[in-house]
């Protein structure tokens, strides 16, 4: 549009401006550059236009790595230099872009010259920027002695800057290594200020520690109310590096590591961040030192039990220290080694301290967290440990009661809520999860990063209408991503924030290729296809209303980005047990595999329906548009599409079976819950779906055969094997009560598997129903013509007979599966029955931990959980009712 306007009025600044912005929106950097140059020619006195062109060239360099260094970057560089030489450089942004170009071309020395030269006077908006960029450039140039002294200076002026310590230590060790490599005598770094021996590093860090102490002791009033962690953590970091390098003296250069850590505890133990600091340095201590440290420090706190009586803390600082020690001992793995009895007695102690400590938080407002909430988190983990080791869900139930109690004291603590969400999900009650999730006020980009907290549970537990809401909310956020990012990409040019241009482009890429986005799109599509239809005509209408091309895969699996933020749950789980990075990687693979199956299933369903109703599908299927030979050619083509998709799905199932062997475990510290892949595989639902697709394909083939004289299929495939267990045996097995008594009267287990399997089966049945509907469409005319011919059945093609037979057996098997599932959901999930079952989760125990529980609180939880189970049942029953009517109409 603007292109046309430009042709009409080539000298309008306004139109050119709009045209430039339009190219920014679509990311056409080449055109951007041309328009910007046209603008520059029009208004040569306006510098920004010229630099828009420069930035557009830089973006072309990022896009095309091959030409970046040979063409784009040198060109951009020359353009800027031309302006510098003419003395026409005006703004800070213009210097920044020059620095970007020089760095991209690895011309670090030139960039340094800019920083030292007159142009640097324009760099005013970020006070620290020049000095930090300078050391960065020195680092790139590997001028280690200069880098080292530069970082020392930076540390002296910013004694709490972690970045500086890290880089300082890195450069020191590079110098140390250079020394030892150079052997004797050859000392090529004459700069005496650089720290090129371990002794000098120790000396420097000790000076920093002394300086911090002096500044707090001598100054009156103290200049800094808070001690600085930097120098102390710097020392621990040094030890960590030495130990990793297997330096024999690592534990001597600064004295005993245990003592250093204890010193750190003395100084910062009452800060909540101390745990994450010390967590980094757990490896500095041996197992016995860890034990010794915890024991000694606990004793030093002076609040241990005496004569069976717990001594309560007298202020919150002591509480915070105590919490830290318990967190550390959990992180060190000591809790995992404890017997059940010890776990429970520690949990009880923590509960008492929690209850007592509430008194310190009486004046807190409702948006504050209680000082003692961390006790609660720890004790819930302990109860969970016990639940896992004893396989007794009574402990989970009890943990939930305690959590709900603590949420009344600390109504906005997100950690308590996240833990409660996990526990409710574990017992299969989705409604409470969702309510807690909503209370976290998740919105906008958090739909992408935190949606996973509920997303894998909502369908697993069959809350279909909430699922719709979640998907819609998420997709609404993504719908505006392109517009939002483009608008501000334009602003970057307008305000000359050139360093942000590429950042915004990458950001947009990450959002558009988000895993969560792809999942929600796929799941919503599947849900839309299966949920409402109670007749095949309805399904046909629904699919015709969708703008879908089953030929193409919507997800670009190679570019998929895992934007899930799994760092929100505070965790003290030992690294040995849970490697979060590895788990996230695993989970990502599993999500991708499951997503692939879901995408293919949806595409198969769409194609199947169109194959069954050639006329109805004709208008929206893009592939048919290209073929003008009439419906016959199109049908053949759709068949090929389905055969191909079927093959892809079969392959995908084979791959997933491999992956599934390395299944995810679910530890409480991790919110990344498994997908439904494992249950799906266990029930062989993929193969079952393939079989019914095969039925459709052979019906269609023989229909064609009858019409066109045995025309062979264009693509052949090997039919899927029938799974060992029949569908009806699966649905039969699934009829269980929700709460089971196991191992005598000892243990209670909530049979969440029952819910999950039923939901999957119901979903599978719905998909099968649709494919059967498509078969029915194809077989109907054949059946009718057969009926016309009367009783001359002997003339019927024997293959056709078997097609009709398997169709009938499929139909009746599906119908009886529906009936079984309906029943599975009826009896055990009625209100009275459930209440009775859930009552059995109460623990009758004289232990203090299990007393003091508010009965009304517990019964309100029971109500919530009951209602949630019943919602699952009701939603699935409605779905099945519709499919029952659907199937009844498919009988011949």
């Amino acid at each position: 549009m603007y292109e046309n306007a430009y042709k009409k009025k080539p000298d309008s600044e306004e139109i050119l401006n709009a045209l430039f912005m339009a190219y920014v929106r679509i990311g056409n950097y080449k055109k951007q550059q041309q328009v910007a140059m046209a603008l520059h020619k029009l208004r040569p006195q306006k510098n920004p236009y010229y630099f828009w062109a420069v930035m557009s060239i830089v973006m072309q360099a990022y896009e095309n790595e091959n030409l970046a260094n040979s063409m784009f970057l040198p060109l951009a560089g020359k353009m800027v230099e031309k302006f510098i030489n003419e003395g026409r450089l005006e703004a800070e942004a213009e210097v920044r872009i020059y620095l970007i170009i020089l760095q991209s071309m690895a011309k670090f020395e030139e960039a340094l010259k800019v920083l030292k030269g007159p142009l640097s006077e324009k760099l005013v908006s970020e006070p620290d920027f020049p000095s930090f960029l300078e050391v960065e450039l020195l680092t790139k140039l590997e001028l280690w002695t200069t880098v080292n002294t530069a970082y020392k200076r930076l540390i002296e002026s910013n004694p709490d800057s972690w970045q500086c310590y890290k880089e300082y230590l890195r450069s020191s060790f590079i110098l140390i290594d250079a020394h030892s490599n150079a052997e004797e005598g050859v000392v090529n770094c004459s700069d005496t200020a650089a720290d090129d021996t371990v002794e000098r590093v120790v000396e420097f860090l000790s000076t920093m520690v002394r300086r911090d102490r002096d500044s707090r002791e001598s100054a009156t009033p103290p200049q800094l109310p808070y001690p600085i962690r930097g120098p102390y953590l710097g020392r621990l970091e040094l030890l960590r590096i030495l130990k990793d390098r297997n330096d024999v003296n690592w534990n001597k250069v600064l004295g005993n590591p245990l003592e250093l850590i204890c010193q750190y505890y003395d100084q910062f133990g009452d800060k909540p961040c101390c745990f994450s600091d010390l967590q980094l340095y757990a490896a500095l201590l041996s197992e016995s030192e860890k034990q010794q440290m915890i024991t000694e420090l606990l004793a030093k706190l002076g609040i241990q039990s005496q004569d069976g009586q717990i001594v309560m803390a007298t202020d919150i600082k002591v509480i915070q220290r105590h919490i830290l020690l318990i967190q550390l001992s959990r992180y060190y793995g000591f809790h995992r080694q404890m017997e059940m009895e010890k776990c429970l007695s520690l949990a009880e102690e923590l509960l008492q301290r929690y209850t007592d400590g509430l008194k310190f938080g009486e004046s807190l407002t409702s948006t504050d967290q209680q000082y003692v909430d961390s006790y609660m988190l720890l004790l819930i983990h302990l109860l969970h440990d016990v639940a896992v080791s004893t396989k007794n869900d009574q402990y989970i139930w009890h943990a939930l009661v305690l959590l709900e109690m603590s949420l009344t004291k600390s109504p906005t603590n997100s950690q308590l809520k996240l833990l409660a969400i996990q526990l409710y999900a574990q017992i299969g009650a989705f409604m409470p999860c969702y309510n807690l999730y909503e209370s976290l006020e998740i919105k906008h980009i958090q739909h992408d990063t935190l949606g996973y907290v509920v997303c894998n549970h909502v369908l697993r537990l069959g809350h279909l209408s909430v699922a719709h809401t979640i998907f819609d909310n998420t997709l609404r956020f993504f719908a505006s991503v392109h517009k939002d990012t483009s608008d501000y990409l334009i602003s970057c040019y307008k305000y000359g924030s050139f360093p942000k241009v590429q950042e915004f482009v990458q950001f947009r890429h990450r959002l558009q290729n988000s895993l969560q986005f792809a999942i929600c799109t796929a799941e919503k599509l599947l849900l839309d296809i299966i949920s409402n239809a109670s007749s095949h005509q309805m399904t046909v209408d629904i699919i015709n209303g969708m703008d879908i091309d089953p030929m193409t895969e919507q997800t670009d699996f190679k570019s998929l980005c895992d934007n899930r933020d799994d760092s929100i749950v505070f965790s003290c789980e030992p690294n040995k047990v849970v490697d979060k990075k590895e788990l996230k990687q695993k989970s990502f693979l599993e999500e991708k595999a499951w997503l692939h199956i879901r995408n293919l299933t949806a595409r198969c369903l769409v194609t199947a329906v169109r194959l069954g109703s050639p006329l109805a599908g004709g208008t929206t299927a893009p592939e048919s548009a290209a073929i003008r030979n009439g419906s016959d050619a199109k049908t053949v083509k759709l068949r090929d599409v389905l055969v191909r998709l079927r093959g892809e799905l079969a392959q995908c199932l084979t791959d997933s079976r491999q992956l599934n062997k390395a299944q995810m475990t679910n530890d409480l510290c991790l919110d990344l819950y498994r997908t439904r892949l494992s249950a799906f595989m266990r029930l062989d639902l993929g193969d079952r779906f393939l079989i019914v697709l095969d039925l459709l394909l052979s019906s269609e083939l023989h229909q064609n055969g009858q019409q066109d004289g045995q025309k062979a299929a264009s693509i052949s495939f090997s039919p899927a094997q029938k799974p060992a267990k029949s569908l009806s045996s699966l649905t039969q097995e699934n009829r269980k009560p929700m709460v089971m008594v196991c191992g005598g009267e000892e243990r209670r287990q909530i049979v969440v598997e029952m819910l999950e399997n039923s939901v999957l089966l119901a979903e599978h049945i719905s998909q099968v129903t649709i494919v059967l509907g498509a078969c029915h469409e194809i077989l109907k005319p054949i059946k009718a013509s057969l009926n016309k011919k009367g009783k001359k059945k002997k003339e019927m093609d024997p293959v056709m007979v078997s097609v009709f037979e398997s169709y009938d057996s499929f139909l009746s098997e599906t119908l009886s599966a529906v009936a079984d599932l309906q029943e599975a959901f009826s009896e055990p999930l009625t209100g009275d029955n459930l209440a009775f079952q859930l009552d059995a989760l109460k623990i009758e125990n004289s232990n203090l931990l299990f007393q003091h529980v508010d009965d009304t609180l517990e019964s309100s939880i029971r109500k919530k959980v009951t209602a949630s189970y019943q919602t699952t049942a009701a939603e699935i029953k409605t779905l099945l009712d519709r499919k029952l009517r659907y199937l009844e109409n498919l009988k011949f």
Partner: protein
Amino acid sequence: MTTIRPFTCDDLFTFNNVNLDPLTETYGLPFYLQYLAHWPEYFQAAESPSGEIMGYIMGKAEGPADNWHGHVTALTVAPEYRRLGLAAKLMSSLEDISEKKKCYFVDLFVRVSNRVAVDMYKRLGYIVYRRVLEYYSGDVDEDAFDMRKALSHDTEKKSIVPFTRDVRPEELE
């Protein structure tokens, strides 16, 4: 121990431990992107040694003539990193930038009920310039304090002579 560095788009993916705090609002993308595009130097994050975002500050410079000033739009620190002086550090970096930009003063709005924050700003040298009635909408609307601190450019400290009366949000320029 902290690394103060410019806030980047990618931080929007990981700032949840800070934003799950009930008093920290999560805004729509345009809001953050606007600040990043227009005032990138005013948007700083503090990062912990383990790589977590401890807190961040968002701000801008605006206003005509002698009303040219730095504004703090959002300042937040995750619960576990409070009482380490982090907010003060982030504020002082914003003030430094505003000095360089020759601003006359820095201002901010804060809920009148947020005692901890109001006290902290007072310790950092801010005064209550005026009260803005029903500035925060919610179940119950809440007033805001408009707090200010003069910078060296405002030699006569004219910007911090308290306003004589309370104002309504629509009166703010």
